[in-house]
């Protein structure tokens, strides 16, 4: 019985299709994570400047994006933009755009938190031993801020990977959706197909996210001293 249930992976290109679905998941999350890191640092630093206008703008962006559900953002960028203003974006572009908007906001807040959490005496001590401001940033502030940033960034990365199934909403066949397609076809005859396919998807998400999590642990340990 187990053998017949597991046949679902051997039929046709089912296994290859799941891998193609995984590729879509990884593509969207990798591009979005990278863009979010870069843009998030810029927006996060804006939030720590002394210019009130920049800070207000960054703050507004953060609050707007972070508290609107991802599905609403996907809906607006995929359906509403096209229907009302004729801006017809491709589904994958919309996915990357929305995940980057969201990731940037989250990342910016992490950067702001890391940068402002360093006690003021760090900067003052730097000045006392005669370092210039850019030297202080380079040798004192940034190395410490980055260490504080790592756990949050890793957490954000795995969260973004696990949120990608939402793109089913704009008709992108990522891993979970492909799994569903397979289950719906095989499930007519094979009662256990849904169990094995979803168990496999569980394993894949774990296999992708666990190494990222371990890498973070490794960095933290390395930098402890």
């Amino acid at each position, binding site marked *: 019985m187990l053998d017949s249930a597991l046949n679902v992976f051997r039929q046709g290109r089912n296994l290859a299709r799941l891998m193609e679905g995984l590729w879509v998941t990884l593509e969207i999350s990798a591009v979005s994570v990278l863009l979010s890191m870069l843009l998030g640092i810029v927006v996060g630093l804006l939030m720590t400047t002394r210019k009130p206008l920049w800070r207000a703008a960054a703050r507004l962006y953060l609050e707007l994006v972070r508290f609107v559900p991802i599905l609403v953002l996907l809906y607006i960028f995929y359906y509403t933009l096209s229907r009302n203003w004729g801006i*017809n974006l491709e589904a994958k572009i919309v996915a990357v755009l929305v995940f980057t908007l969201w990731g940037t906001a989250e990342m910016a807040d992490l950067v702001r938190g890391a940068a402002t959490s360093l006690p003021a005496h760090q900067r003052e001590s730097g000045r006392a031993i005669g370092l210039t401001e850019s030297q202080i940033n380079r040798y004192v502030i940034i190395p410490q801020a980055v260490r504080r940033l790592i756990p949050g960034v890793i957490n954000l990365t795995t969260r973004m990977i696990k949120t990608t199934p939402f793109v089913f909403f704009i008709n992108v066949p990522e891993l979970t959706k492909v799994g569903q397609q397979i289950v719906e076809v095989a499930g007519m005859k094979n009662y256990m197909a849904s169990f094995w396919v979803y168990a496999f998807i569980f394993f894949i998400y774990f296999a992708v996210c666990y190494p990222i999590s371990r890498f973070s642990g490794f960095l933290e340990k390395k930098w402890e001293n």
Partner: protein
Amino acid sequence: MLKAKIFRVLVPALALMFLAAPALAAGELAKIKEAGKIRIGVFSDKPPFGYVDENGDHRGYDVYLARRLAQDLLGDENKIEFVLVEAASRMEVLESNKVDLILANFTVTPERAQRVDFAKPYMKVALGVVSPANAPVTDVAQLRGQKLIVNKGTTADIYFAEKHPEVNLLKYDQNTEAFNALRDGRGAALAHDNTLIFAWINENPGFVSGISFLGNLDSIAPAVKKGNTELLDWLNEEIVRLGQENFFHKNYDATLKPIYGDTVDPETVVVEGGVLE
């Protein structure tokens, strides 16, 4: 679970917020020919109507028709861009111009007809109720106070909520989830389109279709964006033309018969030439 709720609450709200829609330009057919492909919204996980088979190819009754339409309009049955749609997003993808045409087992209802234009029907469907053979449900009265399994937002869901509030509904998103729930004994019976129930009991001895025709006989038709009369007129003529060569019976034999077996009379499902009898 989440998605059905979100669609139901969110979609109308957002749709109301942005009611103004740009008018359709003329020459829709010319535009499709110029693009060299027609964009057709189909299901990817609803066998035997629209699904992706184990080789990754689109299959099903809707897809068979889709390929023929592409053949007759563009001269090549592969000049199609398939867009995978969900049951709840079928009207959205038309209104936001993501597809030219929906062929996704789309039941014609007056509410839907206000937002999209339906062509002539190519299939008909009524509700059916499937139950375990050792505890068959042959009359809706037997369901009073019992749990009945349905799929969210389907005609079965709407029919029982309106006409039989005395029946407790247990709702699921996916067909497989719903049928597995029936197998697990989570409800006394399951109500769905009778066509799908015929297909399922054929594979699952131990269950019977105690009620095979319930509610109105509904028709299933292609849908285009509201106001796209050029494509609509072409579809209507095409469906009549295809009726002359008995195309939809051939479609039935190719896509539905292997699943339904000989237990189902094709005349209960197929609509030929757009004429609902």
